[in-house]
C-alpha cells in the first residue's frame, strides 16, 4: 500500500467515526435505546400521540440505507484485504457478522410492524453489534496504517 493512500484511508476512518456518532445521535433522538421506545416508534402510542409506522413508510427509510450500509461495509472491510488480517479465519467471520447484523438492523422494523414485538430487541441488538463490528474494523485499520 502506498504511503499516500494511508492518508486517504486514515481520513476515511475519521469520517467513519463521525458517521457512527451521527447515527447514534439520530437513533437516540428519533427512536431511543429502550425496548419500549423502539416499539412506540414503530407501532405508535395513542396516549403519547405517536403515529404508527406503515410498511411503505419504513420501506422509504430502508431503501437508501440498504445501498448505503452495503457500500459502507464493503468499502471499510475491503481495506482489511490489504492487511495480514485477510489470511485469518476471523476475517471471514467478521465479514459474515457485519452483513448479517446490517441485514437484521435494516429489516427488523418490518417484523415489528407485523406484530413481532420481540424484534424490537433484535433491532437494538443488531444496531449495537453493527456499531461494535465497525468500531473493531476501524481499530484494526487504525493500527495497521499508524
Amino acid at each position, binding site marked *: 500500500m*502506498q504511503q*499516500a*493512500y494511508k*492518508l*486517504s484511508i486514515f*481520513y*476515511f476512518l*475519521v*469520517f*467513519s467515526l*463521525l*458517521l457512527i456518532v*451521527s*447515527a447514534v*445521535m*439520530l437513533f437516540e*433522538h*428519533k427512536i431511543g435505546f429502550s425496548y419500549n421506545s423502539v416499539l412506540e416508534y414503530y407501532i405508535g402510542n395513542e396516549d403519547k400521540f405517536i403515529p404508527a409506522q406503515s410498511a411503505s413508510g419504513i420501506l422509504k427509510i430502508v431503501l437508501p440505507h440498504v445501498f*448505503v450500509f452495503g*457500500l*459502507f461495509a464493503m*468499502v471499510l472491510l*475491503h481495506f482489511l484485504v490489504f492487511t495480514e488480517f485477510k489470511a485469518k479465519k476471523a476475517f471471514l467471520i467478521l465479514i459474515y457478522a457485519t452483513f448479517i447484523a446490517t441485514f437484521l438492523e435494516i429489516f427488523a422494523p418490518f417484523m415489528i410492524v407485523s406484530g413481532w414485538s420481540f424484534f424490537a430487541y433484535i433491532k437494538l441488538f443488531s444496531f449495537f453489534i453493527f456499531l461494535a463490528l465497525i468500531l473493531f474494523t476501524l481499530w484494526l485499520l487504525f493500527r495497521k496504517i499508524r
Partner: protein
Amino acid sequence: MKFTVIKNIQKNSPMSLILRGFLLFILIYLISDIFVLKSSFGITFDGVNSTLFGNEELYIDAINEASFLEFWHTQIFFIMMILLTLSSIFIRVASMGRVILTNTLMLSAIISLISLPLAFYLSDFFTNIYVITYHLWHIIALIMILYALWKFNAASV
C-alpha cells in the same frame, strides 16, 4: 478501486477515460451542491444562522433537531465517499503537494462537519468556522479535480 494498483494510470487510456468521466461528475456534484445548499441550508453566515436558529424578521422557523441530524448524517456520508475517491485519484496523478493538499482538504471537511453540530447545540460562533471550512474544502476539491483532469489530458495528448 482498481485504479489504485494499475501502473502508470495516465497511459492506460480506458482507465484514464473512466476516471476523467468520474472526475467530471464529482465536479458537477460539488458545483450543484453549492447551489442546492445556497437555496436550502445556506452557505453564508446569515443564511446558515437563519436555518439553524430561525429569523423573526424573515419569518423563518429554526430547523428541528431531527431534520438537522438527518442533514448532518447524510452530509457526512456523501462527503466521506466523495473525498475518499477524489483523494485516491489525486494521489495517483499528482507529483508535488499531494500530501499538503490532501491534508488540507480532509481536515477542512472534517472541521466543517464537526463545527455544524457545535453551532447547533453550543454556540453560533461555530457557524463562522463551518462556513469558512465549507468553502475552503470545496475550493481545494475543485483545484484537485481540475489538476487531475489537466494531468490526464496532458498524458493523453
